[in-house]
């Protein structure tokens, strides 16, 4: 009989399977969620749920009580604090679970939950909480524990310890503001000239012109700095980058305007000069904003826990990771990552190396055996003697290794082609035209020189690619595909061959489907097995407990867990055993995947067979990929899922199993040598080298904590099904840029036609330039948003709030 209820937990929205707890009339999936609710209720913060129903983060895995003791070490503490004095301390934390306005509400009202908190301020795009608290009442480790208890465990990593602050992007905002101010006011001043009104009062005219000059100065000296510096740098390298004509146009326009002002021939062209600067800066700000919202370059060191427990002279003390030296004895608790290579000196190691080999079955190590970093200990604590520090560990070596003979992606960037030719051609034209006309009409030749430089501005081309890239990256990020930079868009669009990793990419981690082989268990036995399984933290036991729905009613005595063999205990007086097959049946059973055998009172009842659960969305996604790309699957696992995979992939993919990390890398290299462009989708550190080798490496993540460095993009597991649409969008990107390219080229040709004849007034050139830029901008922005809408990718502005 199915006793599973399909109600949702009031706090986190997860379905409550079997074991539920109540408080009043509300149902929760676990004690953790219930306790958060009661904290909020007691503090009068239930508006949390009003803003977004089920806004809570699920607390199904409870936090170890002394997990934050390492924060009591003053040296470690010091590195995390911003400021401390007698009255209070200020610290900033990165909290990746912040995702909606309810989180904002709760965290900013943290002072109502605990009086030790003075104030808490959230920076939503950065997911950063700056907390001002009274460290006498609430020490740092308790503050962090409080945050964790509410479901907002801060992510403390080594990169925090190094205090690498991202560069302030404020300067460009100042420059933009000043440019906009001056541009607007100069245009205002130039209004009479636009309308062709000739005032009688020469004094006024001069006054207007000189005010315009004064306004143009800050733009030239301050706002235009990025262009001048970039142009200077590129000239020093012997190249003419796109910034060179821009810088020249700005300088020349200014110079000419000053000259003409002085000579009294006209009012100068300050409006065009400031206009150039303003529009170009606006484009850059937009791109920067998009990029900053993706805090990407996570250090490799951010994957490891920030501190480990070191045993010296029988005393256990926390030590921050760089302080671990060879011959240190480290104690690794259950669930902790092993931070360095070492020899096992105490305890039985059951290490989950799923990040390294793809197998979630724990690897058993005996005393004296070498234990490699990167695995997670499951089971009781072990002690290891460090033989290699982190920097030289196996995993770092794997990651650091750049494949020999890896070829650099050829620079197909349109913009860089422009860099080399366009500017040179424009300069030639300008100088040539001016020289020609200097024989006939000096006035005209100056006209030609400046207007050619203004009109033939490739800034429209530059802007169009920046804006389109920025918009596309923004749309992709809304759909939870985070690109490292704009160059990745083209790389994705050029893909021929897609390779999937199996574990964690095609299969959902944690959710393992299981079935029971044997005579169906009686109700009583189900409860017995579930109660025993709930005692252990082993992932298989947890899955069984979840499947059967354990509840509290059954007492378990004499619980013993023997890593590698199984667990046993007396449930309600009956001996229940789960784990390896008893001797009597060992021969009859063939290993076909993961199995957990069940015995009650020494009577063998059968076994649970675990099938890795493939994501539901695979079929839909693959239908969009067949016939357009070649597909492969590489897995470090054994081949027992081969038939199932063949069915899912309709025999259109090449499947390879038992792949070690270097096998995957070699496979990709072979494909690349035969001319294919490869996209690799995987996860975890073991794929790091393969992801780097591939032309596009996409890391699939199910939570924000585990970034894979050196990947070109991060994809949230839920958005994997959108992959075909993402690729289509990226392909559209180059088409849109090409279209705007062509359009701006037409503008340029038309403009040059008139400019070279010397009949184009600088004013007209100046108006034409921003007008063309603006129209191209609208075109690119509009068409990329349109394409996204057609592909049914959400481009709606929901801020970063996913559930709003």
């Amino acid at each position: 009989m199915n006793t599973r209820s399909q109600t949702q937990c009031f706090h986190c929205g997860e379905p409550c399977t079997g074991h539920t707890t109540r408080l009043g009339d509300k149902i929760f999936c676990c004690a953790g969620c219930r306790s958060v609710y009661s904290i909020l209720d007691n503090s009068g913060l239930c508006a949390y749920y009003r803003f977004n129903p089920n806004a809570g983060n699920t607390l199904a895995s409870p936090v170890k009580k002394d997990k934050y003791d390492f924060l009591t070490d003053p040296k470690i503490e010091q590195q995390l604090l911003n400021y401390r004095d007698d009255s209070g301390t200020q610290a900033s934390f990165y909290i990746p679970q912040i995702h909606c306005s309810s989180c904002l509400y709760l965290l900013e009202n943290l002072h109502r939950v605990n009086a030790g908190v003075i104030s808490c301020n959230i920076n939503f795009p950065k997911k950063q909480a700056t907390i001002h608290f009274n460290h006498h009442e609430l020490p740092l480790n308790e503050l962090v524990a409080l945050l964790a208890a509410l479901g907002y465990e801060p992510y403390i990593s080594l990169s925090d310890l190094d205090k690498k602050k991202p560069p302030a992007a404020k300067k460009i905002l100042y420059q933009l503001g000043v440019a906009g101010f001056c541009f607007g006011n100069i245009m205002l001043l130039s209004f009479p000239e636009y309308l062709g009104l000739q005032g009688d009062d020469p004094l006024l005219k001069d006054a207007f012109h000189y005010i315009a000059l004064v306004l143009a100065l800050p733009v030239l000296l301050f706002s235009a700095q990025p262009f001048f510096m970039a142009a200077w740098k590129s000239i020093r390298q012997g190249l003419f980058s796109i910034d060179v004509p821009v810088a020249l146009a700005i300088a020349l326009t200014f110079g000419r305007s000053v000259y003409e002002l002085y000579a009294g021939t006209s009012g100068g062209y300050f409006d065009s000069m400031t206009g150039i600067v303003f529009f170009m800066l606006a484009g850059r700000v937009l791109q920067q904003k998009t990029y900053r919202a993706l805090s990407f370059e996570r250090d490799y060191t951010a994957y490891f826990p920030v501190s480990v427990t070191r045993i010296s002279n029988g005393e256990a003390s926390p030590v921050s990771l760089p302080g671990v030296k060879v011959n240190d004895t480290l104690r690794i608790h259950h669930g902790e990552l092993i931070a360095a290579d070492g020899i096992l000196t105490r305890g039985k190691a059951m290490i989950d190396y799923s990040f390294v080999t793809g197998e979630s079955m724990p690897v058993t190590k005996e005393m004296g055996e070498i234990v490699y970093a990167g695995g997670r200990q499951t089971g009781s604590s072990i002690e290891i003697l460090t033989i290699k520090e982190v920097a030289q560990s196996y995993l770092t070596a794997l990651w650091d290794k750049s494949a020999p003979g890896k070829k650099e992606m050829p620079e197909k960037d349109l913009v860089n082609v422009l860099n080399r030719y366009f500017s040179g051609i424009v300069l030639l034209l300008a100088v040539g035209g001016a020289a020609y006309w200097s024989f006939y009409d000096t006035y005209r030749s100056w006209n030609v020189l400046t207007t050619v430089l203004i009109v033939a501005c490739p800034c429209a081309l530059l802007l169009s690619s920046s804006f389109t890239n920025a918009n596309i990256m923004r749309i992709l990020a809304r759909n939870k595909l985070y690109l490292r930079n704009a160059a990745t868009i083209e790389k994705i669009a050029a893909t021929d061959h897609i390779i999937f990793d199996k574990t964690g990419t095609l299969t959902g981690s944690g959710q393992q489907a299981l079935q029971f082989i044997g005579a169906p268990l009686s109700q009583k036995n189900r409860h017995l097995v579930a109660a025993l399984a709930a005692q252990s933290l082993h992932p298989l036991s947890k899955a069984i407990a979840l499947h059967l729905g354990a509840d509290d009613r059954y007492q378990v005595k004499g619980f013993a867990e023997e890593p590698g063999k199984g667990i046993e205990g007396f449930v309600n007086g009956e001996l229940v055993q789960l784990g390896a097959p008893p001797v009597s049946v060992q021969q009859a059973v063939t290993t076909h995947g993961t199995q957990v055998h069940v015995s009650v009172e020494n009577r063998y009842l059968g076994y649970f067979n675990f099938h890795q659960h493939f994501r539901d969305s695979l079929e839909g996604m693959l239908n969009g990929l067949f016939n357009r790309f070649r597909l492969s699957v590489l897995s470090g696992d054994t081949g027992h899922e081969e038939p199932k995979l063949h069915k899912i992939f309709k025999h259109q993919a090449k499947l390879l199993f038992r792949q070690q990390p270097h096998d995957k890398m070699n496979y990709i290299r072979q494909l690349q040598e035969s001319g294919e462009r490869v996209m690799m989708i995987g996860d975890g550190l073991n794929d790091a080298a393969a992801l780097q080798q591939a032309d596009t490496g996409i890391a699939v993540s199910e939570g924000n904590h585990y970034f894979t460095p050196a990947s070109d993009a991060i994809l949230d597991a839920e958005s994997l099904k959108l992959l075909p649409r993402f690729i289509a969008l990226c392909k559209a990107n180059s088409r849109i840029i090409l279209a705007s390219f062509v359009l701006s080229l037409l503008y340029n040709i038309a403009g040059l036609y008139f400019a070279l004849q010397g009949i184009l007034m600088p004013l007209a050139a100046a108006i034409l330039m921003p007008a063309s830029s603006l129209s191209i901008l609208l075109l690119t922005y509009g068409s990329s948003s349109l394409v996204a809408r057609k592909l049914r990718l959400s481009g709606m502005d929901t801020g970063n709030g996913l559930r709003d």
Partner: protein
Amino acid sequence: MSVILILLLASLGVALFFLAAFIWSIRSGQMDDDYSPSRRILFDDAPTEDLNKKPTVL
């Protein structure tokens, strides 16, 4: 007609004031987070403890 000059300078002055305000706002970090303020204004204040206090009349 030259009074227009004075008007011009005055309007420039006003505009300069706004530019200064803009720069100040960037300096004080208001542009760092453009998502939270829109939500924050919709949060309710904590209910006041003292119910005997008369509500202020605007």
